[in-house]
Structure formats: C-alpha cells, structure tokens
C-alpha cells in the first residue's frame, strides 16, 4: 500500500487505501489527550464502598477541600427521559445525596493542588453508611417483595417494551416444532485504553468555562451540563481533543464532568481529573448484562414461522443520558429477528434496576447478545431437524429486498445469502469436517461455528424518535470552506476518536471538488469551532457525516463551476474540475481552485452580485438508515483437560456497501472481532454477593492480547446502499456483533461428543468444564 503520487487527475480518491491523515502526529507522540493538560487543582472522587445503603455521615480531614452533595445546592439531577414503554424517569444526583446505590458511586470530591495530595486526602475521608442488602442480579430484583431501589420505579422495572404481531398465536400453535433457548450474557465493560478524563478551566475575562473531556458527543455534553447546572450554554465550551477510544462508553454524560465544570466556576480556576483504571472498571459504564429466553416456531421443513423472546436487561443503578437505559432492551426488541425472514414476532423486553454500575451503550448495543442467542438457537434447531447449520440458514435468510421486518423496519438491499456462501467457500467445510474427525480420534476437539447477522447502521432522527427518546440524535451538519489561500476546511458535528474520519471525509471531498486530500483539514470536537452535531457512535459517522460532507461538497463544486464560468467566460457545462483547477473542456483555458477561492473573497465585484461572497457551504443529512450484513465463521480448538478454547482462524464475509477506504474499513472489522473474541471467551465484570466488583484491574477483566486473536481473513461484497447518498453503509460495530455467536457455535460444535450445551458468554474454561462435569454426572445417573 502506498500514497499515490498522482495528484487527482483521472483517479478517484474514494475506494483507495490511502494512509490516514491522523497518523503522523499520533506516531510521534504528538497526540493531545485530555490528561496531558496541566491544572491548578486536581480532583479525586471518594466512592462508595457499599452497594446499597443510607449515608449517615461524611467526615473529612480538617482543612481539606471536600465537596459533597450538600455543597451542590441548585444543581439538578441527571434525569434522562423516554416517552414510551412505561418508562419511569429516575434521577441520578451528581454526588450521592441521601443514599448510595452501587459500589463506586461518587460520594465526595476532594480538591488539592496535585493528584497525589488529592488521593492522600481522599484516603482519609470517612463515609459512614447504614448498609442494606444489595440486589446484584436482575432476576432477584424482579422477585416479589424485592427491595425497591428507586422510589419512582415499583418492582425495580424502569421500562417494559411489548410487541406481538397480529395472528401470532394461530401460527405458533400450528407449528411443527418449537425450539427454546435460555441464553445468558454476563456483564462487560467497553474498556477504552484511555480511561475517562476531564479538565475544566475558567476564563475570568469572558467568564466562560472550557471543558476538555474524553467524550464521543461534545455538543450534547455541553447541552446536558448547561441544563444540569442551569447556566447559559454559551458560557460553556466543550472540547473532545484526541480521544483514546470510546466504543460507546464515552457517549454518556458522566456526573464527574458536571462536578469539574461546577468547581471551575466556583474556584475561578482550572481543575483536572483523570480516572484510574479501577474507577473505569467499576464506576464508568457497563453493558451486556442480559438474560434472554428465545423460542422459535418452525414448520416441518425447518422454515422459521415465529419468534418469541423475553429479554431481561440489568440496567444497573441509574439511567444513562442521552439514550436512557432503554438502549439495550429496546435494541434487543427491535432487532431480534435479525437477518431471517420471519413475520410473526412476540417480545417482552424489560430494563431492571439493580445495585450495580449503570449500564450504557457498548459497541453493538445488545446485538452481540441477540445475535449470539438467535444464532445459537438456529444451530439447536438444525440439530433437532437433523440438518446442517448452513442449510437451515440457507432456508431462512432474507433474500428479497426491500424487506419489511415484523417490527416494521425496512431492510434495504443486502447479501445475507451471498456472504454465507462466500464464507462457506472460504472455509472448505468438507476439509474441516475431515480434519475434525481425525482430531477427535486422537482426543482433540475442533469446532466450526457460523453466524449471520444484519447490522442496522447510519440511522437518522426518525429511528431515535420511534424509541420515544426525548433527545433524538440523527442528523449531522458539515460546514465546508475553501479559505482565501485555497486550502479546504470541513467543520463537522461528528466527533471521531480513532475511526479515521478525517481521512475518509477528505477522500469524499477531494473527489467532488478536484483537490488532493492532503490540503483538506477536517475539524471536529470543539463546540466553539464545529457546528452542532451528535458525535460518533452507532456506526453512523461515515454514512451521516459523510453524506452531509458530500452535500456540502456538491454545493462548493457548483459554486466553483459558476465562478469558473464567469472568470473563464465559458458555459458551466463545459467546466471540468480536476487536479486543483477548473478547465474549459477541449481548450487550454484554466484557473486554479485556489485563485477562484481567493477571488470569491477579494474580487467579488467581478461576479456582479450573482454569486454570494466567500466560499463556505453547509450540508445537513438525516437518512432513514441502512443495513450492513456479514457472515462470521470461527474455527476453534478445545482442550478437554483445561477447558481452554484456542481460536484457530476467523473468517468474515461482509457487505458494508461502498467502501471509502479499504484499509480503514478492514481495521474497523478487525478491531470489532477482537472485542467480540474478548466478549465471547474472556471478559466479564464479576460482582460478589455483597455487590462488590472483583474484576477491578485489567489482569482480572482480561481484554484479549495479540495471543488470543487469530488470523482474521476478510472477504468483501460491496452492495451500494440506496439509503445513503455516499452508497456507504456503516461497519463500526459489525465485528463484535457476529464474533461471539460464531465462537459459541464453534465451541458447541467441538463439544458435540459430550452432550453439553454452552449458552452463556463469556464461555470461560470454568463454565465449560462445569458443564462437562454436569453432563458426566447426568450420564452416570442414567447408566
């Protein structure tokens, strides 16, 4: 791969694996992250050691600056809102007021001149708590008589979604076979390598506060913090500088950031906070803690007729802003049917409050869990029908488009069957089965697992409105400028943090206006310099911000042609933009884009009032949404003695529409799969029965290292999306959506001789060995 030398002419930038414009600074150690900023004061939060109870007394060392809820008079609670699904709004105090609801909840903020001093003082702050018995498991929270964690939410249910298609019962009752699965996904943490950090600085002249923080949504942070503090939003500037990964965890509003802004205004100074890893693992946001019971009705030919699901999502102690804790249960309900043709569907999805860390979005949001559940069920059904798992998928995957799902979602053209066949071919199934047989004879257990899925991407505001969200993200705006020196600036509302958007948007602009990407700067992440927008999440930025960029670039293109037509005295249709110039086709008359831009500012009299001065255009895009799709295949080797699962190989056949930069697209898939492997085999936030998290270091939580990630083989199909003007579909989440399902199916395939079922993620050696022991015991009893 190399950066092409040709400057534009005759070649398209879109579709090429050019190097990232982000990289030169980052490889030199010149990235600018929040924790790099010096501050006059540092904060250390004192966190609750108890999972539940009343705060009796907080004792601080004499002379120390320690802020508690009592100091934050007039500061509102964080109260996210949803107008559907019997949602009960519950408020989260910025610092715990009367009681605590999870271990790690911030109770007090110590302020000192250095981080070390703040930590020393925090160690001396005593919190006396009248503890109650915590509720950790969502099923315990649902039991009759369970202690109510929030006054506003009887039965500890924060929301309940219900759906049932007309005619469901008749179809269900007439089915030839019902297959049932009880699936469990344990709790996970997105674990960005950069934990949370914030830095708030007060400017005595303007009386404004500038908050740097590790967020995926700088504009919404500004709106939310201004609301909670009842301050004019214009007095707050939020900057997301370089952000060290987010994966959804950095979407939500952190109470800690509110404290930092409050302190900067109170102290009229600068205040910094850098979370440590333990805080990140226990008190930043968690996800994926779900129980799903899924049943499927089939006709006698293994055609899927109906699905019935019951989803219990443990949402933790509070509701996250802006999505609310509906984010997981409602995503599960909306997208459970996945890539299969099934028109009858019944679902109940509940969000359940417990004394654990608050749940929020994490890459894939519920879809890794529902895909694992549905794909596991399809394998079980294949077994019941005596079919090959590949054949039952062939029989049931959607192949006519547009397709309207039982939930009313419209699927645009995709390649569910084609990617399955592509993956099947890449695997060479007969060769694998022969190898598997030979290995079994030697006491070695190999497994092969498939997962097919759809990934809803790039959806605009109507999709969020359908969930009843008070805050409906969706659209994005781009302000595109050619400055008087001829350089290009795109100011975007999205807020990338590793996705390479500066490069891919530059590629889109370069093609449209005939310049090279290296003269294009994409500016983002600063509420003073970037237009209002929603940020980077939900596999949306390339589709939505990319679409807005294309709209703005087309307007700039039109304006350049108009100017060229004036200055070169030619008809607009004869003007060609390429290689940094406008040319009159078939002549040697030419003018550089830089010169035209300069004249658009400095020689406007030439245009006789027919062209607006300057060279800035806006594009806004709010698309309906599209669907990427893929087939994932895991090949594993299982060690019967230790319970260890070794990943042998991972194969992906995927379709994300038009690919703007193949190198960046592959990187997104690779990274997603690695997280999916971690989610399937290793990663689990564990609470003990007293509500204390016991996985508080990376050595306990165990994100995968290079050792656990096998060779990943990628195959692509590009089906241009009709629902996205760049024809690109998003693909940020797909990697981690399919991987757990494929791996769990592969493990079950490897375990075929033992009559066990692994329906739980992560499938740790302990869990698999326990299942094997149980199966042995049962076999002995029958014997």
């Amino acid at each position, binding site marked *: *791969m*190399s950066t092409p030398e040709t400057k534009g002419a005759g070649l398209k930038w879109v579709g090429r694996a050019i*190097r*990232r414009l*982000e*990289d*030169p600074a*980052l*490889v*030199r*150690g*010149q*990235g600018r*992250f929040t*924790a*790099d900023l*010096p501050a006059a004061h540092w904060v250390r939060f004192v966190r609750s050691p108890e999972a539940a109870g009343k705060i009796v007394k907080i004792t601080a060392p004499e002379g120390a600056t320690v802020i508690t809820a009592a100091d934050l008079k007039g500061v509102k609670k964080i109260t996210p809102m949803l107008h559907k699904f019997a949602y009960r709004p519950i408020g989260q105090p910025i610092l715990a007021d009367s009681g605590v609801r999870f271990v790690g909840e911030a109770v007090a903020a110590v302020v000192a001149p250095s981080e*070390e001093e703040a930590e020393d003082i925090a160690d001396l702050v005593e919190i006396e708590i009248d503890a109650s018995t915590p509720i950790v498991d969502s099923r315990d929270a649902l039991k009759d008589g369970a202690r109510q964690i929030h006054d506003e939410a009887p039965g500890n249910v924060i929301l309940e979604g219900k759906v049932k298609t007309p005619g469901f019962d008749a179809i269900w009752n007439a089915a030839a076979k019902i297959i049932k699965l009880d699936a469990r996904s344990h709790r996970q943490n997105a*674990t*960005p*390598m*950069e*934990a949370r950090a914030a830095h708030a600085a007060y400017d005595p002249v303007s009386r404004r506060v500038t908050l740097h923080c590790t967020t995926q949504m700088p504009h919404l942070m500004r709106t939310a913090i201004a609301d909670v503090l009842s301050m004019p939003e214009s007095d707050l500037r939020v900057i997301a500088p*370089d*952000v*060290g*990964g987010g*994966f959804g965890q950095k979407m939500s509003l952190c109470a800690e950031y509110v404290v930092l802004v409050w302190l900067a205004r109170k102290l009229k100074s600068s205040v910094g906070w*850098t979370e*440590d*890893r333990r805080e990140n693992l226990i008190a930043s946001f968690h996800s994926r803690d779900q129980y799903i019971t899924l049943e499927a009705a089939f006709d006698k030919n293994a055609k899927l007729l109906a699905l019935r699901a019951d989803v219990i999502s443990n949402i933790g102690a509070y509701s996250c802003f802006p999505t609310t804790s509906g984010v997981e249960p409602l995503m599960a309900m909306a997208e459970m049917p996945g890539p299969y043709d099934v028109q009858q569907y019944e679902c109940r999805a509940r969000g359940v409050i417990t004394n654990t860390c608050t749940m929020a979005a994490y890459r894939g949001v519920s879809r890794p869990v529902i895909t694992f559940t549905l794909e596991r069920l399809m394998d079980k059904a294949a077994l019941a029908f005596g079919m090959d798992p590949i054949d039952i998928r062939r029989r049931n995957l959607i192949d006519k488009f547009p397709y309207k799902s039982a939930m009313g979602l419209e699927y645009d053209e995709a390649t569910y069957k084609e990617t399955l066949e592509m993956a099947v071919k890449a695997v060479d199934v007969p060769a694998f089965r022969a190898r598997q047989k030979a290995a079994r004879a030697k006491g070695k257990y190999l497994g092969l697992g498939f997962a097919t899925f759809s990934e809803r991407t790039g959806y605009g505001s109507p999709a969020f409105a359908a969930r009843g969200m008070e805050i409906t993200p969706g659209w994005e705006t781009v302000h595109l400028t050619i400055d008087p020196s001829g350089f290009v600036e795109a100011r975007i509302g999205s807020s990338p*943090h*590793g*996705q*390479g958007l500066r490069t891919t948007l530059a590629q889109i602009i370069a093609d449209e206006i005939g310049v090279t990407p290296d003269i294009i700067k994409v500016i983002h992440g600063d509420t003073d310099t970037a237009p209002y927008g929603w940020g980077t999440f939900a596999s949306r930025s390339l589709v939505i911000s990319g679409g807005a960029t294309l709209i703005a670039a087309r307007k700039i293109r039109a304006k350049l042609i108009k100017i060229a037509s004036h200055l070169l005295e030619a008809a607009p249709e004869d003007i060609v933009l390429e290689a940094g110039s406008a040319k009159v086709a078939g002549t040697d008359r030419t003018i550089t884009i830089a010169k035209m831009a300069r004249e658009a500012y400095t020689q406007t009299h030439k245009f006789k009032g027919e062209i607006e001065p300057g060279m800035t255009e806006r594009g806004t895009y709010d698309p309906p949404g599209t669907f990427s799709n893929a087939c994932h295949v895991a090949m594993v080797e299982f060690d019967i003695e230790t319970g260890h699962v070794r990943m042998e190989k991972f194969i992906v056949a995927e379709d994300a529409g038009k690919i703007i930069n193949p*190198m*960046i697209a*592959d*990187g997104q898939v*690779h*990274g*997603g*799969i*690695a*997280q999916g492997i971690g989610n399937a085999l290793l990663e689990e936030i564990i609470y003990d029965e007293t509500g204390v998290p016991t996985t508080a*270091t*990376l*050595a306990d939580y165990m*994100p995968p*290292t*290079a*050792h656990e*990630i096998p060779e*990943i083989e990628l195959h692509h199909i590009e089906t241009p999306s009709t629902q996205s003007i760049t024809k690109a579909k998003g693909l940020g989440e797909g*990697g981690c959506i399919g991987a757990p399902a494929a791996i769990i199916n592969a493990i079950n395939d490897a375990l075929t001789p033992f009559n066990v079922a692994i329906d739980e993620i992560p499938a740790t050696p302990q869990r698999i060995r326990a299942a094997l022991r149980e199966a042995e015991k049962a076999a002995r009893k029958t014997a």
Partner: protein
Amino acid sequence: MNEKTDITLTINGADHTIKVEPRRTLVDAIREDCGQTGTHIGCEHGVCGACTVIVDGEPVRSCLMFAVQAAGRQIRTVEGLATDDKLHPMQQAFMDHHGLQCGFCTPGFLMLAVGVLEREPNISDDDLLDVLSSNLCRCTGYQGIIKAVRAAAVEMRGK
C-alpha cells in the same frame, strides 16, 4: 515519604533536573515534571503497557518504576524516535500497515517493539508475537500492529 529529592532524568539525550517524591512513578515524572506527554498511562498496574519506555536499552513499564530509580540512566520515549523530519521505520510501518486507530496505546507499542528489535533483530515470528502480547490495544485487533512490526523488523535489519 513526601519529602522531595533532586534528580536528573535523561530523556532522549536531554537532561531534566527535577524535584520528586520518592514515590513518584517514572511515567508521572516524564509526563508532568518533564512535560513529555507522548508516553501515556493506561492502567498503572503494569498490565496494559501504554506507558512503555526504553531505559538503558530495555523496554520497561514506566508506571512500575520510580523516577528515582531511573536517575542517571538513558531514557528513551516516543518523542525521541524520529530524527528531524524522518520517522523511525517503526513509526512509518505503523502508518503503512494501519497499526493504530485512536493512537493511545501506540507510543507504548512503538517503544516495546523498537526496544525488542534493537536487542534481538532476528527474533522469530512466534517470539515476536509473545512480546507483542505484553501490551494491550483495544482498537486494531492487533492485525495491523503485527504486520507493522514484522515489516519494520525487516527494514531495521536491512540498516
């Protein structure tokens, strides 16, 4: 414990005379007292390796070393890899092979890989994978990192 001592840290050939408490970690001293923020902190438990620097030719976790232990020794950080306008082959390889996304773990991976390849230029692919397993990256799935380090190894051997 909290009394500060004078030490001199030599980072990328430049001396920094600073006052630190004995408990101050090397990474805090590098970042805060010497202002070299290219080295990052990911866990402070010695697990993730984001803070890897080279001390006297050996990659170390600078969150597990006290600043006073590094006094008088040669410390190299990511800021010292490139010479003027020329990137180190490892930096170039990370760009060429998409060895980074958010860039937070990158300085640690660069210093780990450079440190190991300088000592063991002919390291086997398996051993190299072992070494690279000592640091964590959450973005790339390691595919680009492994490719980049293997490519840089070839380049560095050719010198």
